[in-house]
């Protein structure tokens, strides 16, 4: 391990769900890195594969889902590693066993905060007991010390009267307080990376603001890295250092937060930014993205966004762009998967005929009409 290696490196990760309707390519070859002390965002609409990507890192995917390819490396350890051998895709020998991932990685090195604070705590055990158990397991502390640590952590995340609240049950906490408990769980295990899977989506806006402030404070204090999964560009702007924009299982743009907002390189990102409500615009002026995202069972040919893209041209229907470096960035290059960047893709975008609205609408209808029930 040397100083320049990223904390976490995800390369060409693929996770699929094998359903009766067909194979859902929920995560279809994504690559990104997380540096020490960084907050990296994964942003996209519902069903883009963000949560699946987050769970895949810790190998928490359950039947009928399966990680089918790619690599996840964390501090020199291979959490996920597949290779092509004898014409078959197999797990590499250096990939950690399930037992090793459970004992050495989960909680201890990488902790996760789930989306729904109402469902993430076990209703029949006390909040403190659950926190204490995770501390015991991941920090090898005896029960009494783990208990003290748990109380300290509850205080740290802003639970009033932590000693008294320790023995309360989850139903005696509000949603925001429960989310604080879940954050306390993640921090108390002293991991180097926390994956936050839409942790504020289920909360009121005011509570969301408090939680974001809390996380920023704690992140500065502990230097923990974060992967922040969200569909909210506002949250991204507030908290992230770098951002990955996901669409239908792929990362379509990857940049620092400033570049993403000010030097947007992908029409999907532009559309997401455009659809954000702003105080100086009325509802009529809001510019939502046309249509809904198609199912990942049968993604569109060429660029997956072309049926909804205002800039789509003939070439976009046939050529599938993977994301490439299209501009310089502060540390990492600004990457985007759009044929508009002719100097990089050289697919003849500007010479191609623009798709007219009717044609595009028709293609979009075809794609979404027979969509099954599979979600992310």
């Amino acid at each position, binding site marked *: 391990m040397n100083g320049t290696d990223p904390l976490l490196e995800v390369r060409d990760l693929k996770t699929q769900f094998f359903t009766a309707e067909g194979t859902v390519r929920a995560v279809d070859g994504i690559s990104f890195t997380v540096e020490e002390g960084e907050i990296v965002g994964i942003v996209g609409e519902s069903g883009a594969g963000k949560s699946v990507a987050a769970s895949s890192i810790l190998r*928490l995917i*359950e039947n009928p889902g399966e990680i089918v390819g790619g690599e996840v490396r964390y501090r020199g350890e291979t959490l996920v590693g597949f290779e092509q051998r004898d014409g078959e895709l197999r797990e590499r020998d250096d990939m950690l066993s399930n037992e090793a991932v459970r004992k050495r990685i989960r*909680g201890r090195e990488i*902790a*996760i905060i789930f989306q729904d604070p109402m469902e*993430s705590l*076990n*209703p029949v055990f006390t909040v403190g007991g659950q926190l204490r158990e995770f501390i015991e397991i*991941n920090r090898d502390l005896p029960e009494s010390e783990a208990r003290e640590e748990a109380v300290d952590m509850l205080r740290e995340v802003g639970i009033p009267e932590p000693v008294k609240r320790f023995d309360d049950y989850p139903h005696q906490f509000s949603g925001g307080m429960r989310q604080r408990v*879940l954050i306390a769980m993640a921090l108390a295990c002293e991991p180097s990376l926390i994956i936050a899977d839409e942790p504020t989506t289920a909360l009121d806006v005011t509570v969301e603001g408090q939680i974001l402030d809390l996380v920023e404070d704690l992140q500065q204090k502990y230097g923990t890295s974060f992967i922040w999964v969200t569909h909210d560009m506002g949250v991204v702007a507030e908290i992230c250092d770098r951002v990955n924009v996901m669409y239908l299982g792929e990362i379509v743009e990857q940049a620092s937060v400033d570049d993403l907002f000010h030097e947007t390189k992908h029409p999907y990102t532009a559309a997401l930014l455009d659809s954000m409500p702003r105080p100086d615009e009325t509802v009529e002026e809001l510019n939502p993205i046309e249509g809904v995202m198609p199912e990942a069972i049968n993604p569109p040919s060429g660029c997956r966004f072309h049926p909804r893209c205002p800039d789509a041209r003939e070439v976009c229907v046939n050529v599938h762009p993977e994301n490439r470096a299209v501009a310089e960035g502060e540390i990492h290059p600004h990457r985007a998967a759009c044929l508009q960047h002719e100097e990089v893709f050289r697919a003849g975008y500007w010479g191609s005929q623009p798709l007219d609205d009717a044609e595009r609408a028709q293609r979009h209808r075809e794609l979404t009409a027979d969509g099954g029930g599979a979600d992310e």
Partner: protein
Amino acid sequence: MLRYTVRRLLQAIPVLLGIVTITFLLTDAIPGDPVSIMLGPSPNAEQAAAIRAKYGLDRPLYVRYLNYVADVVQGDLGHSLYYGVPVTQKIAERMPVTLLLLVSSFTFAILTAVPLGVISAKRRNQPTDHVSRVVALIGVSTPSFWIGLLLIIVFSFHLNLLPATNLIMPWADPVNVDGAGSRLDVLVMAGEHLLMPTITLGTLQMAAITRIERSAMLEVLSEEYVKLARAYGVPEGTILRKHAFRNAQLPVITVVGLQLTAALGGAVLTETVFSINGMGRLIITAINNQDYELVMGTTLFFGLTFVIGVILTDLSYAYIDPRVTYGERE
């Protein structure tokens, strides 16, 4: 919790009063006349009138009802016309037999069903799961008296291994038990006698509990908090035993409570098949002989058992799930 228990017990009082009322009215509505059964086919009118007067049968319904309720409240269930002894005495005599049978078959059912259901859920759609599901399906669809008869034919008639009739109470005095020299002999014989009736009555319960245990565990195992425990490196065994098991027992307890009613009905059949003198056969004798006070007494007893079952279910709920007693100030 204490407050909740007391409140739950107090709530049972109107329920019991309702049971007494309905039992009384239903018994009164049974066609036929107990007096004519006592006196034979051609009763003497004067004798009949005397008997009616003696048992208060000549008085109006509401007077008899009020008298009966007043008696029941004082613990007097009346007099059995057929046996010629107080109903309470007859019930006290028969009740331990049926309770032994019920406790034994529920113990058998729970001890087999819970592990079977958990393993089934853990190994969903694997061979172990398929076997346990088939066993459970056969269990719920086989009539208990048929299982009893089959056991008797195989283990008593052909193999001559187990006794086919009667029960022996494990606490019986060895002196009063034929062929028993010591306490140990009595215990062994009690076990031998209890084995087949237990399986007969317990199979249905076992099958029903296995099915609900499996589905409840499957549901809980897909909960977000189980996923969270996995994400924090909690070993799979601990997740199963601690994080999932307790939550999954709520629906199981409901089913166990409801199965108690089914088991009371099953006890009547089981006692008949194995010629066991318990409450089940007592109620049948009472009905056959229009022994109306005994019918009321035994029905009340069954009702009481059911009410106790429901209360125990509720209290177990409160014990397992802290949300149940939430809001009760102690």
